[in-house]
């Protein structure tokens, strides 16, 4: 038995955790460069904001309905996601973190699965402040489908257990749900199924698995079995989220020039990004470390991590982030011996296609990267390099509506008012910066 735990309108919900004034209010989150809508609260959906809408086109609606619009604060979302997963893991025996806001849990051997589902939902709300829905079923596909139902039908109160439904109810839900809403059915496959008059989940449920395999693929056959409650997919506890790509190398001679350091870091980012694309992954975070000779008196170990606005495998994006970090941790006067780049929080590019909540790399950048990779594999090594070091310094994204990174930055912590109440909302970040930064950390990372 499986459960799927999924945060509701996750990015929008994250924006609300530290903003109780926004509860029950419409909230949207915008993509990279404040381009288009990538997350909507229920209220924003009701106000008529379409998913993916370009922001400039809906500014009238935003104004009229008093919608709170935010730039994508990926650092905040990633931290709250990690907290949510840890919270679910405190109740679920085994967990597969499937995406930033979804996790499959192994519920086998649990006597009251629905009660555990309710408990998980309450705990995630209580500990993190994120509303989540739980779907439970004999297979991952049914768990995912039940979650879909729980999210859309208030009668489930956030937890839908397929095993608790009567046969009539199950058939009803399957008949009233489009096959496109099923896990694993992308647009292309869905259209092929439509041609064969498979429109609803029920139509696929009634299809002959062997025929589905001949006409389509093993995947479709598997989905049919899973809809009948025969699990074909197992829990993958070591998820892509826990893998990483690391590139580092010692310099031939010690280096004290920031330009050279950045060039090395850019090279590492280049090679790590290529490896990431071979594996068909996207990275959510980039880390950089530089260090001096360990056995000398004047030593420095510098490292820092940054999260990207959206998961990416684009060399330009990754290398720009890496060189920027290198510039931040570099200390003039130090002789560095080694530099390294690590790509973290990896996600599978495949499972993200059609994932509306985060468009990530554009088709154009993906095509460019494929071209670079094929040229490099044909001519060996790094025939094509980006002018990443140059881009790096100029690279910036437009994020005008960025909320504070309440949980990951000392100087962006939420303020709590003790003095007066009922004074309405105050800006969470006070103009007077609280002096809590440990002095040593400052000197260790910023020269």
């Amino acid at each position, binding site marked *: 038995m499986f459960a799927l735990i999924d945060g509701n309108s996750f990015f929008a919900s994250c924006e609300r955790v530290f903003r*109780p004034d926004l509860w029950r209010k419409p909230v949207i989150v915008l993509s990279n460069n404040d381009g288009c809508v990538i997350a909507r609260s229920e209220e924003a959906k009701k106000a008529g904001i379409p998913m993916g809408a370009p922001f400039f086109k809906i500014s009238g609606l935003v104004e009229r309905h008093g919608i709170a619009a935010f730039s994508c604060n990926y650092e905040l979302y990633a931290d709250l996601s990690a907290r949510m997963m*840890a919270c679910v*893991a405190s109740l679920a025996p085994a967990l597969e973190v499937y995406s930033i806001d979804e996790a499959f849990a192994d519920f086998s051997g649990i006597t009251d699965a629905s009660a555990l589902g309710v408990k998980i939902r309450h705990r995630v709300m209580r500990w993190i402040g994120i509303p989540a829905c739980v779907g439970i079923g004999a297979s991952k596909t049914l768990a995912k489908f039940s979650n879909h139902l729980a999210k859309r039908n208030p009668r489930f109160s956030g937890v839908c257990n397929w095993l608790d439904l009567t046969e009539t109810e199950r058939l009803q839900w399957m008949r009233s749900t489009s096959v496109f809403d099923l896990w694993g059915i992308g647009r292309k496959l869905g259209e092929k199924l439509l041609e064969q008059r498979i429109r609803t989940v029920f139509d696929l449920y009634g299809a002959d698995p062997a025929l589905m395999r001949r006409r389509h693929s093993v995947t479709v056959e598997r989905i049919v079995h899973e809809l009948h409650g025969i699990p074909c997919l197992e829990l993958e506890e070591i998820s892509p989220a826990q893998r990483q790509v690391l590139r580092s190398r010692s310099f031939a001679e010690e280096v004290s020039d920031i330009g050279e350091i950045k060039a090395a870091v850019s090279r590492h980012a280049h090679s790590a990004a290529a490896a990431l694309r071979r594996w068909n992954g996207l990275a959510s975070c980039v880390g950089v470390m530089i*260090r001096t000779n360990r056995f000398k008196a004047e030593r420095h170990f510098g490292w820092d991590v940054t999260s990207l606005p959206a998961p990416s495998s684009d060399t330009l994006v990754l290398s720009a982030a890496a060189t920027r970090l290198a510039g931040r941790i570099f200390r003039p006067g130090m002789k560095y011996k080694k530099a390294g780049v690590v790509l*973290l929080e990896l996600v599978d590019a495949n499972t993200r296609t059609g994932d509306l909540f985060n468009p990530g790399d554009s088709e154009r950048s993906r095509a460019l990267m494929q071209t670079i990779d094929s040229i490099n594999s044909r001519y060996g090594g790094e025939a094509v390099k980006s002018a990443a070091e140059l881009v790096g310094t100029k690279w910036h994204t437009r994020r005008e509506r960025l909320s504070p990174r309440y949980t990951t930055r000392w100087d962006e912590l939420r303020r709590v008012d003790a003095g007066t*109440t009922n004074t309405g909302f105050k800006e969470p970040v006070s103009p007077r910066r609280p002096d809590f930064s440990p002095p040593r950390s400052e000197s260790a990372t910023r020269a």
Partner: protein
Amino acid sequence: MDTPERKNALKTADPRAGISESLAPDENPRPRMSPLIDDRIRAGFPSPASGDASCGIDLNEHLIRNPAATFFLVVSGDSMVGEGIDDGDMVIVDRSVEPRSGSIVVAAIEGDFTLKRFVKTAASFELHSGNPEYPVIHPKHEDDHIVGVVCWILRKCSR
């Protein structure tokens, strides 16, 4: 830290898996506020301190019982001076702790966070200030609730 939450939060593969070279830091890594973020960073750049080597006393371990549910906030206003909390103090708030009468809590009242002393009543709860000049708050709005319990107060003494 040995809470079940912590164990599960760290239910990852060996953080050093797949890394051939050791990138041992020569200085302590920069302290991070969020223990979760810290663990993720350690997963990226292994530090000898994250292995078997003892690293002495760890402030995170001492101050944070449940990393997933623990948040840091900065206090403004002086109504809690009577409770020992001054303007500008930092508070460590654990959302997983059940408030008891007398607990200092962060509450969401009418759409804003407020820091008060929690007092249980027969039907619900009240919020008291450390200063008698401030009125007692009786939650009226349906969304009013306790966000978490203040476990520690941090104040810098020297500049």
